[in-house]
């Protein structure tokens, strides 16, 4: 190994400057490209975080004035912000839980059972993903008005369940298609009834897909503005609140909330990586 490195070094020194520059470029192009891509992706987030420490003069948080921690210390100083964030979290949590349960069962029904209307269900479930949000929002609103349902928390919840279900069904279905049915048969063969089989075998094997779908659904629920705006009535979620605020003033506390969401997400991801690498390490030892 070391001999080869030495050889390479000798060869390199004998090469011309041009060739060496070319080699350098070849070796580092990918690194530079990746770095640029990361900067492109992360720069807007960095700006959001940076401006959460801004000390703005006036109503708009668009120009850097000076560093302060006040925005973080008094994150709910803005009237209505705390309520909006709470509502967003409540709706995202509730609708994700309901949609995950519903979507998992729907995916299993669609993949495993040949019932009448299976094809239609398949298409209907996919529709919320394929329809422009603005159309969905408008149609939902006219539906609620026609049915004389008062818009508010309940209607936002229903609308969010609708599109989260689609994400869950799509991800779980993909996993189920490659699922070895013999595994469930083996569980039953070994004395597990249907429920135990589901709990001990089916669910653990589906859980990565369910979790992925649920996280995606949760994030989109927190983020959704267009559909929510139509069906929100007097209720304000975080995006709806920001939209309303932006017309008169954008307080830096909005950046604080956005930064927090980002930091929490990153923390979860990092913890996940650490846990799974620890687990892999333990398995290596056990082997």
């Amino acid at each position, binding site marked *: 190994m070391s001999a080869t490195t030495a050889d390479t070094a000798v060869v390199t020194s004998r090469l011309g400057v041009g060739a060496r520059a070319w080699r350098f470029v070849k070796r580092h192009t990918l690194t530079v490209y990746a770095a640029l891509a990361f900067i492109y992706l992360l720069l807007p987030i960095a700006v959001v975080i940076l401006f959460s420490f801004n000390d703005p003069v006036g109503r708009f948080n668009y120009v850097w004035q000076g560093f302060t921690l006040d925005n973080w210390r008094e994150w709910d100083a803005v009237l209505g912000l705390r309520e909006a964030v709470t509502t967003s979290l409540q709706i995202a949590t509730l609708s994700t839980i309901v949609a995950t349960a519903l979507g998992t069962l729907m995916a299993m029904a669609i993949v495993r059972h040949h019932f009448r209307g299976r094809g239609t269900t398949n298409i209907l479930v996919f529709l919320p993903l394929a329809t422009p949000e603005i159309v969905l929002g408008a149609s939902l609103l006219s539906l609620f008005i026609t049915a004389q349902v008062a818009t508010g928390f309940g209607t936002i919840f229903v609308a969010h369940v609708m599109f989260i279900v689609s994400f869950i069904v799509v991800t779980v279905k993909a996993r189920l298609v490659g699922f*070895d049915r*013999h*595994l469930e*048969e*083996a*569980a*039953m*063969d*070994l*004395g*597990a*009834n*249907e429920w*135990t089989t589901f709990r*001990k*075998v089916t669910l*653990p*094997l589906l859980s990565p897909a369910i979790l992925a779908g649920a996280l995606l659904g949760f994030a989109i629920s927190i983020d959704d503005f267009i559909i929510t705006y139509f069906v929100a009535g007097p209720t304000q979620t975080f995006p709806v609140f920001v939209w309303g605020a932006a017309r008169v003033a954008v307080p830096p506390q909005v950046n604080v909330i956005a930064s927090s969401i980002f930091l929490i997400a990153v923390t979860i991801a990092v913890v996940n990586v650490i846990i799974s690498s620890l687990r892999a390490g333990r*398995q290596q030892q*056990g*082997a």
Partner: protein
Amino acid sequence: MASEGAGAPVADVRLEHVVKRFDDVVAVDGVSVEIPRGSFFAMLGPSGCGKTTTLRMIGGFEEPTEGRIFLGAEDVVGLPPYRRDVNTVFQSYALFPHMTIEDNVAFGLERKGVARSERAGRVAEILELVGLGGLGKRKPKQLSGGQQQRVALARALVNHPRVLLLDEPLGALDLKLRKQMQLELKRIQHEVGLTFVHVTHDQEEAMTMADRIAVMNGGRIEQLGPPQELYERPATAFVAGFLGASNLLPGTVEGPGAIRLDSGELVRADVNGRTGRVAAGVRPEKIALGAGGGANELAGTVSESAYIGVATQVVVRTKAGVMQVFAQNAGTGGHVLAPGSPVTLSWSQDATFVVDDVGGTDRDEEEVT
């Protein structure tokens, strides 16, 4: 239960006219069989003949379209797999990928409510038995195909079921390990006294392991009996061809002990009540080169002769058809027969079996394998 004849042993597994249709495919076509307690039963047949389907109906994964299935005295049709005292070793192993080997093997015991401490002991014991001691902490993906297969075996065996169903459990093993596991399986079966139903398409495996073999073809049982009977007295041309090599000579029954071949010669054989068109069969190793081997004689010319150490393989062209002969090299010198030299073949009446005619003399060459 009351209808069982007094004193007659209750079969552990009994199928009565079991039929299974998948839409337009008839996978199993009227199978009836009784498998006595503690026996090693093999189902042998070519790919797609319905072996796995039959096994799945016993295990409870498919319901028969027609017929009844008994485990002991109980009709189990309609019972889910977890209510049948049967365990299966699946053709594809079906190990739980998210559990360790230990947890896989302990799964059945856990369902039965065996205490954790006892569980650990029994799991370690059975893993030792299948030669996987010390690998219990691994995941199935970290094992080779053969090791996975042995885990599947251990996972079923550890439950001491009434009947163990094995769907080609040795398929992924190399020849040496395969032979070793065959003996091991036999030993385990004797030791624990379980009833084994073993599916395979390897005739040698079935012959060495089973007390009784059912040869299946096209969803039906062609013949059922101990290995020796199937080999010495095959009932159909299919069985004769599937279990080893054989020579089949078409002819017509002329009397209780005689068949007139199409080529004119008379062959002595126990026709077993058959009449009309039949084929007389004889195994290549039961034919003597030269006269004096028995009541049946055919004259022909050698067309090929190959010395293969323990025997000499000779192909002889006769008027009745092409005959294959394995002459044991018991003496010295062997049978060096030049192609083209005339030879007389002879064999005894006892060595001759009779099967239904397979239609047309052109089948002969195919049957000589």
